[in-house]
């Protein structure tokens, strides 16, 4: 699926939750639980995303011309949030990741649900994921 198709799918799922904050958070936590486990050996200092209130580890690798992301967090809501990003961006081409318009975030009303502190953390995650894509893109082109 393309980044756009996945985003539309997420928007459709969240629309079923009727904007109820409690239901949305519960759903986000459930998504976190479904995130593929990250090996403990990857949970090292250099994989920690700076700028998040809770701890978030992110590691990546390139498979063919696709970027694969693995992540974990010590809090369940954050884990759910990053699982959304992984669902949208993992397995996509670096170029597409770099240029993707992540409109689903606003469409599902993420800002109101998670508040300003976590929104900042969320932005840091996206930034970090894009940085990896940029690095892979350079590598692929060389």
């Amino acid at each position, binding site marked *: 699926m393309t980044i756009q198709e996945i985003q539309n799918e997420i928007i459709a799922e969240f629309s079923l939750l009727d904007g*109820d904050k*409690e239901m949305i*958070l*519960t759903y986000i*936590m459930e998504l976190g*639980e479904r995130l593929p486990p990250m090996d403990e050996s990857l949970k090292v200092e250099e994989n920690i995303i700076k700028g998040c209130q809770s701890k978030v580890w992110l590691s990546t690798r390139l498979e063919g011309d696709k970027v694969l992301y693995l992540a974990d967090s*010590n*809090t369940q809501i954050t884990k759910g949030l990053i699982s959304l990003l992984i669902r949208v961006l993992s397995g996509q081409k670096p170029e597409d990741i770099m240029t993707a318009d992540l409109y689903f975030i606003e469409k599902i009303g993420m800002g109101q649900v998670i508040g300003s502190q976590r929104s900042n953390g969320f932005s840091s995650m996206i930034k970090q994921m894009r940085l990896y894509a940029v690095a892979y893109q350079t590598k692929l082109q060389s």
Partner: protein
Amino acid sequence: MSTLSAPTLDITAIRQQFPILHQQINGKPLVYFDNAATNQKPESVINALNGYYSGYNANIHRGIHALAEKATAAFEDTRKAVQQFIGSREVEEVIFTKGTTEGINLVAATWGRMSLQAGDEIIISTMEHHSNIVPWQLLCEEKGAVLRVIPISESGEIIWEEFEKLLSAKTKLVSIVHASNALGTINPVQKVIKAAHAVGAKVLVDGAQASAHLALDVQTLDVDFYVFSAHKLYGPTGVGILYGKRALLEAMPPYQGGGEMIAEVSFEKTTYNVIPYKFEAGTPNIADVVALKAAIDFVNQYGKSAIAAHEDALLQYATEKVGAIEGIRLVGTAAHKVSVLSFVLEGMHPFDVGMMLDAKGIAVRTGHHCTQPLMKRLGLEGTIRASFAIYNTFEEIDTLVSALKDLAAKRKK
């Protein structure tokens, strides 16, 4: 707390005085349990702010016109109200600051710089707020002095024997929290002050969490410095109180230079104003100081003992109900506590609990509560903290308990 003497409060009527409480959050009635961070303001305080700005805003002390007279009188009336509220001998011993944090920094920068030498020691406790740690660290670094820390027990109480061992002729200051913001523990400050004075040390008490709950008489306590913040006392943000004994305040150098704090300025030599003005450089936070009097009147109207009796009952009820939920562990089980209930829910991060409670309209605080060394000692990243004030009800605690039961059932085991 004696239940015999305390008159029961009409909580419904009291709630009517707090406009902010009557709103919905996420479609649910607001339950405000973040009172240890800041408590809400009664209408009388809000009206005092409004009344000042719409009726007699003027710069104080130097003016000769009617508005300046009125503003000065209101400003100084608050000082008198604070004097009575804390039981200080003289009104000049009451200094207005921005808050607890500034009060501690003021003492560190003036009394501390003047009195400390290399090798001297300052004693604090493990449960201090960062604002009663960092100013002393800075001072110790500057002076080559040593910071000593009183250890605590699992229940969150200072270990008295260990404190006694730390005391010596080298001890110049003991700076300790009256009631812990993270655990609720009430420290035996009277005893601490006696023991510290016996070795010739001065004592600063951080009363941020005590001012709205505990009876206070600085003369009986014989405390050297006592600091607190108006915003935790139903008053406005941006104002705090530093009480200091006259002799100490007079011996201390000024904190900041500027207007108000001088007697006479020349390029050759400037002489300083008398206390309290020596420590109040610049135009103070007049409006908020004026409104603080309304907050003190509010507390006095009901009496701290009646307020404490209500809060103690809430705490006891919450301790039983929350403590009985499977998966919840209470943090801080001291025998004497203010109305702070700290806990963790096994298998769920405090941030997640806090956000889920917020979705249900319940405001609590989560995290380290600006007490990272304490959290480290307890082996925790943070806790969830519910703290109660005069306007909270048993029904609100029931709401919290039922929300927590939901979460406890949902969490991954």
